[in-house]
């Protein structure tokens, strides 16, 4: 087990820079997720940790050891590949035993260790099967067992669930978490699925275009996204460009362009809602579930009149699209069986001043 330190790492393929200015510290025993859309550099970073790529610049350390240019076979990491990469000419047992054979473990110990790990992934009955005879979920567990049996310092998971169907995915998610807790192993998990990232991770790093935008716990990432990319990548969010009009003791006043007019909104002057030390353009962000909706005109701050454009029924939740002149707002309501909102109806929405966050707009900059 080890901590990982990624220090000013850059990776370029020819002229294309896949990862840039990357600084990360992953703690011992942590479940850490690289999250981002495809081509964002998350897999490249994982492969640099595994040793399949060497960084163009910067240093990677496991604990105190400099691993930057150590070849993959000398890193003692266990990797689970997206397509599992099971050896097709070997049985389940031989696949799992491979890493131990390389390490010249004695036959007796090898057998016990393989059987032990196969029991942990609940495949002890399948040890003599050819891997092609296994289902996707079983192959996934063989890949996990093969990576775990060598007692790696770090477990690397490259989108391990992306080839499974939805039900199996849920099952394997808890399976992976269970094994990770049991082995208390430092784990890096690469995914583009925000739900996986939020539900499994101790901490998440959000990537886009080779740059890490934010590192934080799932609730930090969701509740306090660092910028509009993180905000929009994780969960649903309403984002509008804003300008700051004036800053007062209690409130910050911002103006949003609504149709041809500009509408002033009040925001709490609190570090959570307003982080003033930024020079870039600003966005107003608010989660759909934070918006309040009224069927009658109501008094209060930040109230806007609009019209329901669309109602989507999801069972526990109802999604509304509300048009406020030029702006289209997404609003989520819990289904309390007393909503009678129909599309075309006039409604009044309130953007609570403690729920609005003014964040930097980077999506336009980074291309």
């Amino acid at each position: 087990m080890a901590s990982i330190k990624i220090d000013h790492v850059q990776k370029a393929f020819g002229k294309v820079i896949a990862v840039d200015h990357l600084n990360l510290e992953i703690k011992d025993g942590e479940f850490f997720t690289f999250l981002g859309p495809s081509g964002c550099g998350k897999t490249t970073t994982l492969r640099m940790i595994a040793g399949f790529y060497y960084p163009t610049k910067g240093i990677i350390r496991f604990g105190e050891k400099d691993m930057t240019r150590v070849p993959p076979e000398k890193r003692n990491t266990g990797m689970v590949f997206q397509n599992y990469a099971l050896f097709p000419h070997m049985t389940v047992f031989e696949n799992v035993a491979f890493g131990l054979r390389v390490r010249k473990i004695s036959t007796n110990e090898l057998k016990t260790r393989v059987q032990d790990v196969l029991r942990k992934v609940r495949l002890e009955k399948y040890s003599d099967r050819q891997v092609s005879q296994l289902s996707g979920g079983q192959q996934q567990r063989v890949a996990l067992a093969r990576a775990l049996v060598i007692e790696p310092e770090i477990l690397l998971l490259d989108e391990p669930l992306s080839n499974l169907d939805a039900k199996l995915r849920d099952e394997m998610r808890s399976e992976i978490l269970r094994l990770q807790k049991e082995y208390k192993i430092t784990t890096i998990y690469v995914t583009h699925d925000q739900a996986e990232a939020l539900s499994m991770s101790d901490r998440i790093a959000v990537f886009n275009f080779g740059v890490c935008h934010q590192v934080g716990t799932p609730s930090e990432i969701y509740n306090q996204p660092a910028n509009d990319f993180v905000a929009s990548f994780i969960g649903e969010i309403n984002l509008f460009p804003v300008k700051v009009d004036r800053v007062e003791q209690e409130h910050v006043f911002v103006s949003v362009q609504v149709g041809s007019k500009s509408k002033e909104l009040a925001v709490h002057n609190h570090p959570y809602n307003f982080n003033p030390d930024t020079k870039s353009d600003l966005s107003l962000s608010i989660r759909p579930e934070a918006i309040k909706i009224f069927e009658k005109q109501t008094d209060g701050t930040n109230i806007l009149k609009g019209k329901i454009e669309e109602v989507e029924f999801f069972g526990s939740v109802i999604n509304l699209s509300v048009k406020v002149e030029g702006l289209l707002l997404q609003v989520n309501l819990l289904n309390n069986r007393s909503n009678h909102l129909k599309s075309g109806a006039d409604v009044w929405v309130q953007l609570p001043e403690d729920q609005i966050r003014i964040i930097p707009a980077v999506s336009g900059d980074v291309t």
Partner: protein
Amino acid sequence: MIKNRDTRFTILLLIPVLLVLVAYVLYPSLRTFFESLQTEHGTSFANYQDFFSQESKTNLEALWNSVYISLLSVLVSAFIGIPLAFIFNRYDFPGRSFFSSAAIMPIVLPSLVGVMAFMFLYGETGLIPNAIKDLFGLEKVPFKIGGVSGILIVHAYTMYVYFYMTVSSAINKIDPSLEEAAYNLGASRFKVFWKVTFPLLTPAIVAASLLVFMISMASFSAPFLLAGGYRVLSLQIYFSKINGDMEVAATQSVILSIVSIAFLLFMRWYQNRKDYRMATKGIGAHRSEVKNPVMKWIMVLIGIIGVIILLLPHFTILLLSLVPDGTWTWQTYPSVFNFENYRLLLQDPNIFKPLKNSLILAFIATAGNLVFGVVTSYLLVKRKFIGKNFVDILVMIPWALPATVIGMNLIFAFNEPNIFSFGNILVGTFWILPLAYFVRHIPLVVRSTNAVLEQLDDSIEEASRNLGARWFYTFRRVILPIIMPGVLSGTLLAFVESVGEFPTSVLLYTISNRPISIEIMNQLRMFNMGQAAAYGMIQIALIAVVLFISNKFFGVKAEQSLS
């Protein structure tokens, strides 16, 4: 130095591969080119002027004949192969799968043996014309093959298979939903065929056409044995060499090479331009059953006749091999049958020696092909390096060059000592034939290995290294076992082709080291048909065994091993 140890390793593997390719592929080709520039008055293009001048009509005539025969071969093969591919892949009728596997039988006939069979079947004293003559009490044989028609018939018989195979595999790769989509949009059967199905097949048809064209251009056995005196370029090279006109032979080689390589380049360009590969997986065959009983039995009848025609050459060779030499002289038909020829083959050391020679020569060449092919293919598929295209082209050159040219190239390169032969003259020694066979089959083994390596996901190698295995361990325990079936099927095919190799053998063999194909020629000259046929049967059996092994144990279809 180079920091990245993977790059260093790539270079380490690349050096021997490049050395072999430069020494035995590039250098001999260049050597031939320089030879063609030699004249009595120093270095010039005078030989080329002579080639194209009106006075030397024979050369131009040979070039024209080669092109003419090749074009006709393409047409005839296409007219047989494409309809057959459609009938066997789109319609279901009794015996379909038997007929469709019989359709590839010509590939188990080595070209020299095939030509021999056709001579005995349809030639002047052939069994079929004489049988018809006797049956109908005719004065003379009703027909005999020879000259252009003879070459064409042999080409059609052996080369339609390329059309049949490539078009069949293309038909099976067409997603049925594409045609269904066209029907759904209101297109008629006719329209669907010409607007959807046929355009999807054009890449396969063009590929097969070019392949057949190139093979016909290189064809040696058929014009050599069947069409006495009919001048084609590959044969002219041989005659020039026999007559000692080495510069002329070199010039002819260069011109034949240019035509062939131009076609190869065109083929590569065309294949890259049109990519109709479809992403859909697991396409089921959709054959429509022939319901009309008359049609059904007509098809079966045609199938049976087709199979008889296809298998007659094999049967003839078998029959001849059972006729002891000296028992069939003035009679129209052989009358004595026994296993004398096979007994002699096994017991008489003089008769056994050519077979032994061929097996040893082919074994040495193929062992080289195996090692070289695996390393080269690994580099080409799994490693990145500058100049990969160059290596790729060098690998493909022996495929584009007619066998006669490869033979000439090696003569020019190794009839004098140089560093690539470690200061020895190779021509006239034992080693020139294994070298020729090796060069001839570089592309076959590299390409068949490429095919399996491309299937192997990079992550398999990475997984092994991630688990702590070094590269060599990974290669030995993971990569090799996985790719071995595909590699071996290509290598075995190279082996049997080397055993039967004729055009390079006839240019390079030494008296003390005659391979089987040369001995077949000698036996034919001495009218020992039986012994020649027995040699032929051994080759047929070898090929059949190899195809069977590839199919049964390596799961490689015969049609895949050819393309």
